[in-house]
């Protein structure tokens, strides 16, 4: 659960990266320090190894030109015959080693100074042939196993436990060839101790930095998360029903500010949709109130006393008109609700728009004759893609509108055509037209040009809204052109399956 939280995941990644960086840094620092501590020791080892090698090698001119050895080889010496001068290079000690096996043995003085016997931290050496120690300094550490050392490559110096050792072959070839192997080493216990303390210190400092880093990271993460929490708190209040709330998006430049703005605009749209819905419900209720009032008043007055059959008939007719009006309203409301819900997506099949218009004109003919309005059709066959019944409703609504909002003796022109691959229907009348102030609202639900209901004709103010919904669900458009006093023309554009 806690690892689902972005804050904790951020924190975790941050800790991981910080740990890796600190470990890398600490390791490098330790290696540098170790190199710094060990370099003088290795140089000392090298120095001593060179000196030993010099002593072990045969004299430079010896054996050259096949001369017999001209001089008695010098050293190693027994305690008392050690010469006071420095040994010259090329003592050829290697050849005389067997002499000293198991006997006290002294290095030339200068060489001996390099291997301080008394000092346990001092350098030591050991000579070996075939893995067996043949000569060694006294401070050689216990448990030195040559065979183990032999398996190592000669040079460079390596650490073995608390010792630093260097192996080399004094033979000119520099290879293991049955000759003497020399090990030079010294204890590095003190240095190791030092390095150990350095490592501890680095760990402590690294740990400290890690803790500080985590604390800082946590602070940053909390700060980064806080706006998100504020956003979610606001969103929660909005989801609880207070649609008027908005997220405080003061910092609009940041990513979160942009998100807040996006959310705010979503909320604003949501609120407007909700208020439209509320308005729609209230309008619908309002539209139902008047017919109910008619029925209530009629029945209450009529039932007050005995009436003549004629009075009863009139009352019933009045109730019937009211009920018819409610029925029409309910049908319209249901149509709108279905279109809104998008439950029934329009069936898409091609049909002839002109034929549909022709049918609708036949249907409304009685109405137009009753009102003395002439209808003219200029119908070019044009294939149209959509739900024929619904488009029929659109045509019917537009025709009855044109008839209702016309002067007696007026004209209604209906035209269908194919225009740029789109099926176009135009219904125009020469009635009083629509004032410019009403045009933007004409397709709104329950919007009426006259603020009072024109319920006399059973108009409920939903016809054009239904038209718009249907046309929109077909991916078409509906628009109106009108001037007060100069009639109105409604144009519907619908997709056609036969592009020109």
């Amino acid at each position, binding site marked *: 659960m806690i690892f689902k939280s972005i804050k904790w995941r951020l924190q975790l990644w941050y800790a991981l990266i910080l740990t890796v960086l600190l470990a890398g840094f600490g390791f490098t620092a330790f290696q540098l320090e170790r190199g710094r501590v060990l370099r003088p020791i290795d140089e000392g080892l090298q120095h001593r190894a060179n000196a030993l090698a010099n002593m072990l090698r045969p004299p430079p001119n010896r054996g050259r030109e096949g001369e017999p050895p001209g001089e008695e080889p010098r050293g190693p010496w027994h305690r008392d015959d050690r010469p006071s001068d420095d040994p010259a290079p090329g003592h050829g000690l290697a050849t005389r080693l067997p002499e000293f096996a198991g006997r006290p043995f002294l290095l030339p003085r200068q060489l001996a100074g390099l291997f301080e016997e008394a000092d346990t931290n001092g350098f030591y050496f050991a000579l070996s042939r075939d893995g067996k120690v043949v000569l060694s300094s006294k401070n050689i550490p216990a448990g030195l196993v040559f065979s183990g050392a032999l398996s190592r490559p000669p040079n460079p110096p390596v650490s073995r436990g608390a010792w630093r050792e260097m192996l080399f072959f004094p033979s000119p070839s520099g290879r293991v060839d049955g000759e003497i192997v020399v090990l030079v080493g010294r204890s590095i216990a003190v240095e190791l101790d030092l390095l150990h303390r350095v490592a501890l210190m680095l760990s402590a400092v690294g740990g400290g930095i890690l803790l500080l880093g985590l604390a800082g990271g946590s602070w940053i993460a909390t700060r980064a998360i806080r706006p998100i929490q504020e956003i979610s708190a606001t969103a929660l209040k909005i989801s609880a029903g207070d649609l008027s709330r908005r997220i405080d998006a003061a910092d609009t430049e940041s990513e979160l500010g942009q998100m807040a703005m996006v959310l705010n605009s979503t909320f604003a749209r949501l609120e407007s949709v909700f208020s439209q819905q509320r308005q729609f419900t209230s309008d619908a209720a*309002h*539209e139902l*109130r008047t017919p109910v009032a008619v029925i209530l008043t*009629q029945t*209450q*007055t009529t039932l007050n006393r005995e009436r003549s059959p004629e009075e009863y008939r009139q009352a019933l007719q*009045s109730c019937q008109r009211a009920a018819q009006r409610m029925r029409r309203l309910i049908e319209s409301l249901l149509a709108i609700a279905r279109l809104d819900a998008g439950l029934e997506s329009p069936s898409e099949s091609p049909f002839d728009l002109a034929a549909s218009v022709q049918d609708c004109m036949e249907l409304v003919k009685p109405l137009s004759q009753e009102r003395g309005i002439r209808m003219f059709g200029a119908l070019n066959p044009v294939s149209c893609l959509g739900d024929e019944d619904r488009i029929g409703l659109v045509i019917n609504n537009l025709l009855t509108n044109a008839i209702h909002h016309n002067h007696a003796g007026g004209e209604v022109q209906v035209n269908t055509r194919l225009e740029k691959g789109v099926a176009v229907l135009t219904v125009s009348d020469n009635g009083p037209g629509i004032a410019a102030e009403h045009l933007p609202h004409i397709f709104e639900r329950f919007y009426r040009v006259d*603020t009072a*209901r024109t319920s006399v004709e059973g108009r409920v103010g939903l016809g054009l809204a239904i038209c718009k919904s249907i046309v929109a669900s077909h991916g078409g458009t509906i628009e109106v052109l009108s001037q007060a006093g100069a009639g109105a023309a409604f144009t519907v554009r619908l997709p056609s399956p036969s592009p020109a």
Partner: protein
Amino acid sequence: MRILVVEDEPDLLASLARALREEGYAVDTAENGEEALFKAESYDYDTIVLDVMLPKLDGWSVLRRLRQTKKTPVLMLTARDAGRDRVRGLDSGADDYVVKPFDLDELFARLRALIRRSSNQTTTIIEVGAVKLDTAARRVFFRGQPVELTAREYALAEFLVLHRGKVVTRTELYEHLFDEDDSTLSNLLDVHVSNIRKKLGAEFIATRRGHGYCIE
């Protein structure tokens, strides 16, 4: 009592007018705001039932313009019952507010209350000497006994009682008892007055010659 009913739904207007006439009111009707304002300014109606949604001039505008000249009690009739609308209605000078669909009995009771208030009466029972009027039940008692009056006679008696102490001219009486469709001759008033005197005692209505009638 003469009432102006303004409503653009013809069926509702017709049935309301009929119901009010049967209650003994003289009823004038108007189907749009302009007609309503014209009539309301021309006559002193006892009360006006005014729909809000009207063609030409809406109810609010009619009310606002009427209030510049007259204090006629107005009952607003509306299909909107949002609290905001009620407040707006009462604030713009309406005396009462009824939401559609309404109960006819309630509407009548509210109209009676409006008329009572405008004539400074507080109760529905008014006693004048030996005569007692129950304006709610529209019944009259003389010395404790119920008396049958015709609707016109009752309306005349009630109007005079509600304007008790004032001299009511014949023109006033005529204007308040007969609606625009009545073509009754004004001397019919004398017949009604004499009939009432027969039933409720001659001293109930005093004649002020040259001025009109009065109930002390």
